[in-house]
């Protein structure tokens, strides 16, 4: 019977470890080859503190958690700025360096020999020194760890993680400071792994560097992948199956002499076959059934006819540009690449509720100007002002806070997330996106979720996609994805919207629908819009005023009809003789 408890204990300990790696692999989308090290940090902290300082095991566990979280954050900072392959190199290096340290820093870790005699866990005189006694403690610790992981995954914070995994730039464009999210997840992941490690130290009462080798890191990876990445139950599934089969191997006659090698062969083969035949693992991320989206009352009655295409063809009358202050002003932005001047001293003004166009021939610099103004490229000079406040050089996620958001020419919806989540993730100032407040203010988080839920559904109704709210965004047609992107943009509540070729690759009906929607947004939602477009029919039909660029300079501004009557501009656009 003790043996069964032992197996259960191993499964739960590994499940905690695997869940912690799943946070990185499944939700950030990063393969870490050094995860065993974090549990090692927890184990050594537990051992040293309980042996040398004599504190209760919970103290050692807490110290291990914090220490490991800090190391995780430090590892994340450089790693996340580089390409995927570098990350493998870094995490392998991390694993090897720390392993080498564990072997050589004999003063602290006692090197190869390891640390024996770790006292068992103890609370109020109860000593958890047998498998039977340790199991309940472990179950409780496991439940706590899983509860924490679950809270993080199924929360606004977790939603942002998924968005980052799907498309990091698009997430930044919605106002998310993606680096801080990733670093926090690494920290949490390291901390949870340390908890598993400290529990192991107190259970087995002996640790050595060889419990935290790269083979162990690989083993954890196999379990994550087997159970199913980005699925909450995946780690438990993976741990149970792999531990179960591993232990079952012991019963094969004559196995004890080659059990280690057999295990490694087994892990390796499972990993290989999984990657070939079922890379997503046993449990998929989303259940096949569509998520049922319940609509709050009153939603349908109010703006039920919003999506009907009454063709609002006439462009809204001229606003008195003279009496109003521009809501966005670009002054003298410039950019050079090497010797090439891409943008030279460009200035423009956007007035509230106007739709303004930015047009010009290929290579005229409008994309560069566009990207500089919305924070995705640095400028060499010049300034950008929103409502009179200087926002030059701010990162995109900060610009969103200032009221400026952009869409993408290639749409970039979060394909692996539902349509509803795509819009909800864009909602501003979500308390639940703060990892600490998520746990300290559950009431506020829940209330905001309800409010954001309603707001998201309203925006989906506006663009006419309410019935698809529960579907995965990736399963929608291109035209529908563009509508999702517009709803997502509206959900940021930013008054200034930059649209990058919103009508590209659309059939005639969808094109009309999008044009109509943009007009409606400007009028009814009072948005100020800057539009980069190449289809001059769209420009003629939508914008009040356009800026014409060529070779990095803004040559002219005015109503489209006026611009197109100018022979000099025609020469620029159609080519000089």
């Amino acid at each position, binding site marked *: 019977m003790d043996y069964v408890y032992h197996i259960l204990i191993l499964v739960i300990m590994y499940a905690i470890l695997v869940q912690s790696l799943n946070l990185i692999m499944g939700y950030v989308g990063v*393969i870490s080859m050094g995860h065993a090290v974090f549990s090692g940090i927890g184990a050594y902290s537990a051992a040293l503190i309980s042996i040398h300082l004599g504190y209760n095991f919970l103290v050692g566990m807490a110290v291990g958690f914090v220490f490991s979280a800090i190391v995780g954050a430090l590892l994340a900072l*450089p790693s996340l700025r*580089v390409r*995927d*392959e*570098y990350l*493998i*190199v*870094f995490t*392998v*290096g991390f694993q*090897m*360096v720390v392993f*080498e*340290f564990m*072997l*050589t820093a004999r003063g602290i870790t006692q090197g190869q020999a390891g640390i024996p005699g770790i006292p068992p866990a103890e609370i109020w005189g109860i000593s958890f020194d047998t498998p039977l006694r340790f199991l309940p403690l472990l179950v409780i610790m496991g439940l706590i760890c899983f509860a924490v992981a679950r809270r993080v995954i199924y929360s606004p914070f977790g939603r942002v993680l998924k968005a980052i995994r799907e498309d990091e730039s698009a997430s930044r464009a919605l106002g998310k400071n993606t680096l801080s999210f990733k670093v926090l997840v690494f920290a949490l992941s390291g901390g949870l792994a340390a908890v598993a490690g400290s529990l192991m130290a107190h259970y087995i009462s002996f640790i050595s560097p060889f419990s935290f080798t790269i*083979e162990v890191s*690989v083993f954890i*990876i*196999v379990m994550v*992948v087997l159970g199913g990445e980005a699925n909450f139950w995946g780690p438990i599934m993976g741990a149970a199956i792999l531990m179960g089969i591993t232990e079952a191997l012991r019963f094969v006659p004559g196995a004890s002499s*080659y059990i*280690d*090698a*057999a*295990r*490694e*062969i*087994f*892990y*390796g*083969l*499972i*990993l*290989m*076959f*999984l*990657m*070939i035949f079922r*890379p997503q693992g046993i449990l998929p991320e989303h259940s096949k059934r569509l998520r049922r989206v319940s609509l709050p009352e009153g939603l349908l009655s109010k703006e039920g006819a919003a999506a009907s295409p009454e063709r609002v063809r006439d462009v809204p009358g001229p606003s008195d540009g003279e009496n109003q202050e521009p809501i966005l002003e670009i002054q003298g932005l410039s950019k050079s690449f090497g010797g090439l001047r891409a943008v030279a001293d460009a200035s423009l003004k956007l007035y509230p509720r106007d739709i303004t166009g930015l047009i010009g021939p290929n290579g005229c610099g409008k994309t560069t100007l566009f990207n500089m103004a919305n924070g995705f490229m640095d400028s060499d000079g010049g300034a950008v002002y929103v409502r009179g406040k200087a926002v030059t050089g701010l990162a995109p996620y900060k610009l969103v806070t200032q009221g400026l958001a952009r869409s993408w020419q290639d749409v970039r919806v979060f394909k692996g997330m539902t349509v509803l989540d795509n819009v909800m993730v864009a909602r501003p100032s979500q308390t639940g996106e703060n990892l600490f407040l998520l746990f300290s203010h559950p009431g506020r988080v829940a209330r905001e979720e309800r409010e954001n839920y309603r707001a998201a559904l309203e925006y989906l109704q506006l663009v006419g996609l309410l019935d698809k709210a529960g579907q995965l965004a990736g399963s929608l047609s291109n035209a529908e994805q563009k509508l999702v992107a517009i709803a997502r943009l509206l959900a940021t509540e930013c008054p200034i919207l930059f649209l990058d070729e919103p009508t590209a690759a659309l059939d005639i009906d969808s094109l009309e629908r999008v044009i109509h929607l943009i007009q409606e947004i400007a009028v009814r939602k009072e948005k100020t819009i800057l539009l980069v477009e190449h289809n001059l029919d769209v420009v003629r039909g939508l914008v009040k005023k356009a800026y014409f660029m060529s070779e990095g300079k803004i040559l002219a501004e005015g109503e489209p009809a006026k611009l197109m009557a100018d022979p000099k501009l025609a020469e620029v656009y159609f080519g000089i003789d």
Partner: protein
Amino acid sequence: MLTAQLLIQGLITASFYALAGVTWGIIYRTTLTFHFSHQLVFTVAGYTAALLTTELGLHFLLAFFCSLAAAIALGCSIDAFLYRKLREMGATKATTFLSSLGFATAGTAIILLLFSSNPRSLKGFPAKTLSLGDVFFTTADVAMVAISLLSVGLLLLFLRKSRYGKVIRAVGSNSEMARNLGLDINKVYLVVYAIGSGLFGVAAFLFTLKNVAYPTMGIFPFFMSFTAVFLGGINSIAGHALAGFILGMAENIGMIILPGEYKIMIAYGILFIVILIKPEGLLGSKRG
């Protein structure tokens, strides 16, 4: 003098890492696959050499060619049967990496199972200790330096001057364009795996000459090889060689300051610092 000995030691290690670097580098640069199973090729080649000389009593030169053949056979098989299949399925880079990891894990364990962890040595090589002043080295060391540097030189020459070498470089530069020009990408990849695996087999042979064959022998040389590639710059094979050389020298010269067990820390420390300053690597350029 201790320093002179360490310098010679450094030269030996540096030559070895330079060779290791280019073997993985040519594969990575051309195919952009994180070929984790490269370590297995090393181990298989080493064991082939050791076992053929000890169990079958073959002459070491014959064993050399056999281990070379084994390395090429294994490397090409992995590409032809595993990586190619994954390519055709449109697998992501992460998926390919993980399957390579799985194969390497299983393969190393199979070797452990078949041959146990007792090291095997290579018999029949005329091992003599030579000296130059106060400095001592063996014939195996001479072979290591000479053959490694020669191999690196020949590879660089092949890539630069020969027709097929240019094709390989072209595929590494713009595989899409190469495909549209009618080049058989799968065949080029196979050739690249043959070259990379074969040369790593040579390195393994030289390693086994000096040391012994054991199941995990490929791990550390493999780590140094990809460290050298990222340190030197992905698209410069010369960079891989240079970086490997630097890592080898640094490891031994570092022993003057630090006690001998910090090899990995030195290597990764150098990599970390260089990547921080110049992310493309020493001789690398930003990929267009």
